[in-house]
């Protein structure tokens, strides 16, 4: 995927843009089917763990690893845990990481890029050099370092997490919340590195829109600069922002899987698709089902998200379509 910075053709022709986009999206069969599959998968990940007869972490060591059967539709793993429950619970974690980290990237990236683009000059130069510097950081080393220093029970971030959690539950000090903290840590780490491209895209859009007469009109009226940015500029850059957001979700889910595969992301006894694939790959010769089911789920989801993202791009930004 490339980071592009075209403006939506002809500025943004108001509401008809949304209507036209929806019409084009509906006629794009791949994107439309992908959207339906995604909704079904998402609902399944939300509700299956609630309804499934086995909890994702219930062990049955006497049972051990068994192939798919009537009792365990996707079989069980070495610890006798039901893979069906673990796959859908893992889907929750994967989707949550994907959406929340994308949300973090969206908020930081849009704000950063729009402010840099609108104010221009020195503000822009400083802000975009920071982005350039962060871009040069080797992502994997950054995550490993952050993980080593902060994702443990002695880290100040963990204390902050416990304090926040304490607002919602009584036993926030319980060590069983450590894995949850580590998931949030992954959200944060991914979000923090994914906003850079978003900032560049939004900045490009804003620079192109900044000289439009309607922005000058807003200045003439006396709208405050930040209100111009968020009320006039960002909504008019919505097309590319939506497209890039839609394409960031699968990217982040894939990165989460990759980190978990390396042992840097989600940890046992929680599950995520990346973690399940990693575990399955280790025992692939003996228990192939442990690899097949989570891999298929991950692949189907990523494929659908990418189809949907491409469909959105074609729908919202028809000129960017490759011939």
């Amino acid at each position, binding site marked *: 995927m490339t980071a592009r910075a075209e403006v939506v053709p002809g500025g943004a*022709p*108001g*509401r008809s843009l949304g209507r036209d986009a929806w019409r084009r999206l509906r006629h794009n069969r791949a994107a439309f089917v992908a959207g339906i599959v995604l909704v079904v998968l998402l609902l399944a990940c939300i509700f299956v763990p609630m309804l499934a007869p086995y909890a994702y972490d219930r062990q049955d060591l006497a049972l051990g690893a068994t192939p798919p059967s009537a009792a365990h539709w996707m079989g069980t793993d070495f610890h006798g845990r039901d893979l069906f429950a673990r796959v859908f619970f893992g889907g929750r974690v994967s989707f949550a990481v994907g959406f929340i980290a994308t949300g973090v990237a969206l908020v930081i990236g849009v704000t950063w890029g729009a402010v840099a683009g609108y104010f221009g000059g020195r503000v822009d130069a400083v802000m975009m050099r920071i982005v350039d510097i962060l871009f040069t950081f080797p992502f994997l080393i950054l995550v490993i370092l952050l993980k080593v220093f902060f994702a443990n029970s002695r880290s100040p971030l963990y204390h902050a997490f416990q304090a926040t959690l304490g607002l919602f539950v009584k036993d926030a000090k319980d060590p069983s919340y450590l894995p949850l903290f580590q998931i949030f840590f992954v959200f944060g780490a991914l979000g923090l590195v994914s906003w850079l491209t978003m900032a560049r895209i939004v900045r490009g859009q804003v620079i192109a829109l900044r000289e439009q*007469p309607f922005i*000058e009109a*807003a200045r003439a*009226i006396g709208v405050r600069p930040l209100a111009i940015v968020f009320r006039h500029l960002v909504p*008019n850059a*919505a097309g590319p922002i939506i497209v890039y957001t839609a394409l960031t979700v699968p990217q982040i889910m894939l990165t989460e899987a990759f980190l978990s595969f390396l042992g840097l992301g989600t940890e046992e006894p929680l599950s995520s698709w990346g973690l399940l694939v990693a575990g399955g790959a280790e025992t692939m010769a003996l228990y192939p089902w442990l690899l097949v089911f989570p891999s298929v789920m991950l692949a189907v989801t990523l494929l659908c998200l990418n189809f949907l993202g491409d469909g959105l791009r074609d729908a919202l930004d028809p000129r960017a379509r490759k011939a």
Partner: protein
Amino acid sequence: MSAPGAARVPEPTLPAAAVLEVDRLRVTFPVRRGVLGRRVGTLVAVDDVSFAVRPGRTLGLVGESGCGKSTLGRAILRLCEAESGRVSVDGVDVRALTGERLRRARRKMQMIFQDPYASLDPRRTVLDCVAEPLTVHGLASSRRAALPAVTRLLERVGLEASHLGRYPHELSGGQRQRVGIARALALEPLLVVADEPVSALDMSIRAQIVNLLVELQRELGLAYLFIAHDLALVRYVSHEVAVMYLGRVVEHAPVRALFARPFHPYTHALLASAPVPDPDAERGRRRLVLAGEPPSPLDPPTGCAFHPRCPHAEARCARERPELRTVGDGHRAACHLEAPRAWPASPPAGTEGA
């Protein structure tokens, strides 16, 4: 619009103080080249311009495209920065204001834009657009609270409440410009800069919009700086006219004097090249068209900027820049000529009969 004879009669001088005073305003832009943005020159867009506009009066500003008239309007409203000079609106030195004080001062001075489509946010409805000035200046606490005021404004500019929820692309060109006018009037400004407010509109609706602007001026006592290149239009709406050439005012006069007794050769040329709305007269008329492009403001001619295109240019014109001087009652021109001279019958070098 009415027949050319119906130019508005300048009223006797009013004692009211000027709403807008511009004194020796100069606007320049740096010219940068290359990747490092090295400054290679200075473009003087507006140079040494002074004038005043009183309440209820219109100053028409005419000139070829690129002569700096839009930049002048934008600099007055602080939409771009001037290099030197003074702009005062209702006695307040606008160029000295910053931040929140400038923002508040914008209530008194508003703008009507040339392209009504591009100057309305495509994602916002008519209500959003006209309510915005009221909410950002704390005159209404919310869009909903602004609704009665917005409805009144829309009615005043000839729109209906049913237009409130429309988006700009759902309106006609004339309706869009009415929205632009309502937005400019929402803050009850004293001064309105109208930058070619009808040139993007269809011929058939120009007259409606112009008449609306004239009516609003009578009702509200607005002062207009009316930027245009259509001379018939300027003649119809203006009390005074300033002619700009390459960033400078070359002639400034009451509207009747300017059209009856133009002084500057450039004004003669402009008047002569304007079409007359009478086909017979138009056929019989000797049209005189200025040859070539206006000179580049990056490299203006020495002396009088008009001398390379002027049929009466003398050696002095290339050396000395003429200052504005009084040549009649309230009539000033920047020309070395002793008296206005008609363009020669046979086109000399630099001009051609078309």
